[in-house]
């Protein structure tokens, strides 16, 4: 009982955080801010996917969360490197 309320609250918080990130993505002053915002969005999305999996009562969503966690880091590093070097694989 108390847990489902807490779960709903946490899901709302993470969804609201995603909306805030979306606003930041649209109004970011610099490119680096956009990369940082994308990174944060992926981390928030991982939390949303995991909590939705708990809500739905299945462990399948954890696979999607693992994939997101694995790929977001590579994406962030590649973006940052592209901004600095102009190419990713030299």
């Amino acid at each position: 009982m108390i847990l489902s309320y807490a779960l709903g609250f946490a899901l709302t918080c993470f969804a609201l955080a995603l909306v805030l990130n979306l606003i930041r993505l649209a109004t970011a002053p610099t490119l680096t801010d956009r990369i940082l915002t994308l990174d944060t969005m992926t981390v928030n999305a991982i939390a949303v996917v995991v909590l939705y999996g708990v809500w739905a009562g299945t462990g399948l969503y954890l696979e999607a969360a693992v994939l997101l966690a694995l790929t977001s880091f590579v994406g962030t590093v590649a973006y940052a490197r592209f901004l600095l070097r102009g190419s990713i694989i030299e």
Partner: protein
Amino acid sequence: MTLLLEVLIAVVLVGGGLFALVGSYGLLRLPQAMQRLHAPTKATTIGVGAALLASSFGDLPGGGAFSAQEWLIAIFLLLTAPISALFLAKTLILRDEAGTDLPDTRTGAPWATLDQTPPEP
């Protein structure tokens, strides 16, 4: 599942959600680029860590099995968050987006990111 465990997991869930919200709000509102780097990389990691902890110990409706996959995600996020933050900080400094007020290093040497001399073999 005992009541004490339920209350503990509920507290972790609520705290984690609030942390994530504060981190994203800080990303939106903080004035300087380096401060914006500081807000989400810490707070969101704690938020996601709390969500993963709750998911690992409280499989709510299906009832009770401890699962280990969350720990894989948590370990990977905790390993990669500092590295991507370092990359973004380097990008900020090298693109002159960090603002002009980098503090003195107090060692006589310049900031390692801006140091052009090659390292000694």
